[in-house]
């Protein structure tokens, strides 16, 4: 008996992503999450019936990156746009991909009501505690003391209140079926996030209602740190304000 050794490709770009260069800054977490979403849609066999809604923010160009039908929404309104798509095409798999400014500032009404209605969509919420695209302004999720271009002395709760824990906020709504908070700052967490995305999309596929995956991400540019140091910052600073893990899971009772 002989053993034949072949070289087998065990990792390559998923069909869920278009073969184009992405514009994100070096080390930006968007790229990792885009890839995980693309892989998940392919592995669940739903890419062909997926419609994605991208935000206003750094991911505004995501319509060029995800290899499915894509809609560009106005700032904050992606959950409403997604609702329009899902109600019109109930067997489409509809996701929104939103940053913290888009979702938790201007879009707060839309996300709350989509969750309250248990809209059968999946929301991917990129929480990097800053407004990236427009120049590093303070966001609803910016940490206390964090310096930004509109909180140059650091976020002061007396002036601008406290960061919003979106996942916990939405979990109080009975309509929220599955909400979890993840991160992508090391390989173990990247794999855990992928599992969470699969569970979220499966929630939608099974018609069980609203799912949201909040992902703690980095913006190395406005944090002013290297990509690796920014990943460390998530462990050192973000996780104590935004704890990881499943926030609510009502999939069993739907």
């Amino acid at each position, binding site marked *: 008996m002989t053993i034949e050794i072949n070289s087998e490709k065990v990792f390559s770009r998923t069909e869920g992503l278009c073969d184009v260069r992405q514009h994100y800054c070096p080390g930006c977490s968007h790229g990792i999450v885009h890839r995980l979403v693309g892989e998940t849609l392919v592995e669940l066999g739903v890419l062909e019936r997926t*419609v994605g809604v991208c935000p206003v923010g750094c991911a505004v160009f995501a319509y060029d990156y995800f290899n499915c*039908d894509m809609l560009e929404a*106005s700032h904050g309104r992606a959950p409403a746009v997604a*609702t329009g798509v899902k109600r019109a095409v109930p067997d489409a*798999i509809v996701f929104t991909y939103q940053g913290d400014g888009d979702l938790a500032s201007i879009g707060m009404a839309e996300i709350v009501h989509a969750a309250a209605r248990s809209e059968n969509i999946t929301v991917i919420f990129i929480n990097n505690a800053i407004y990236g695209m427009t120049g590093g302004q303070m966001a609803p999720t910016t940490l206390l003391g964090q310096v930004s271009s509109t909180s140059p002395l650091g976020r002061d709760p007396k002036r601008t209140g406290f960061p919003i824990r979106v996942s916990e906020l939405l979990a109080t709504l009975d309509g929220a079926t599955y909400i979890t908070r993840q991160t992508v700052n090391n390989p173990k967490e990247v794999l855990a996030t992928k599992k969470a995305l699969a569970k979220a999309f499966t929630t939608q596929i099974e018609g069980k209602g609203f799912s949201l995956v909040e992902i703690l991400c980095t913006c190395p540019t406005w944090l002013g740190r290297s990509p690796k140091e920014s990943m460390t910052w998530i462990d050192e600073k973000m996780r104590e304000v935004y704890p990881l893990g499943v926030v609510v899971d009502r999939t069993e009772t739907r």
Partner: protein
Amino acid sequence: MSKRQLMKGNEAICKAAMDAGCSCFFGYPITPQNQVPEYLSALMPAAGRVFLQAESEVAAINMVYGAASTGVRVMTSSSSPGVSLKQEGISYIATAELPAVIVNVQRGGPGLGNIAPAQGDYFQATRGGGHGDYRTMVLAPASVQEMYQFTRDAFDLAEKYRNPVLILADAILGQMMEPVEITQPPIPVPPPLPWGTRGTRKGSRTTVNTLLINPVDLEEINIRLQEKYARMAEEDLRWVEDIPVGAELLFVAYGSSARICQSTIDMLAERGIIAGLFRPQTLYPFPYAALKAAAQKVQKVLVVELSAGQMVEDVRLAIEGTRPVEFYGRTGGSVFTPDEVADAAQRVMGK
């Protein structure tokens, strides 16, 4: 087949939407159009179609954008302040070249205003309303019959031009009851348009997007939109004119103002003034050439609006100084009587 039914204006809009195969309605409560979401909240689910009361007018117009992207017929309705909220969304819909029907049952303004009838949103409707060089096609019904017919036509026009179409009504038209004769059979929900975002399973990948970072690309879109609007003006202008022989005065009015002017014309005949009426039915595109031609038959033009004077600017543009153009109006939801309009006409004619 023809059926005469007594209907409320808002109800006629709903019936027309159902008969036109409208798939989805997204709305929000605001007086004086509340019957529209209320009736549709019963009619649409019963017919297997989509009704959703959104969390705001902003959310509603974005739901329209989402549903319109999938290639189905979709409508929203609101009244003046709510239509202000929709402007960004309408700009997106127009730029993405999506069909959609928007109904504005105008109320007193500006500000929160009141729930009385007004025509203060003419600028908002015809000048784009939102940002950028887009235009919305505007139809102005003046009867419950036209509330029905124009709403039905709006779906076809929206698809023909891949553009939002706005029905500009007012609180009188929304609330009044008149007989409606429906001669056009209803159609079932049509199949979705082939380019709609329903997934790549349809054979191609569709992206609906209004961000064009390269100014040259965005200019191309703008040029295409302007060509579209020029075609609208060639092919789908609508107006009605009734100018008796010997007419000295031409009323120009739309919607409820035009109805009041019709009563005024009878009154003026008794007072020795012969007047005609030019009633635009499309406010965008506006029947400039036809109005100029009509004005040549009279001595003076009197524009009558429930506003401080908005359409009067288009009338002046149309007439190009060939006749004197005067204005009479009331604002804030106050509605002039035929007597008041007749008095104004007499002042204008110096009689």
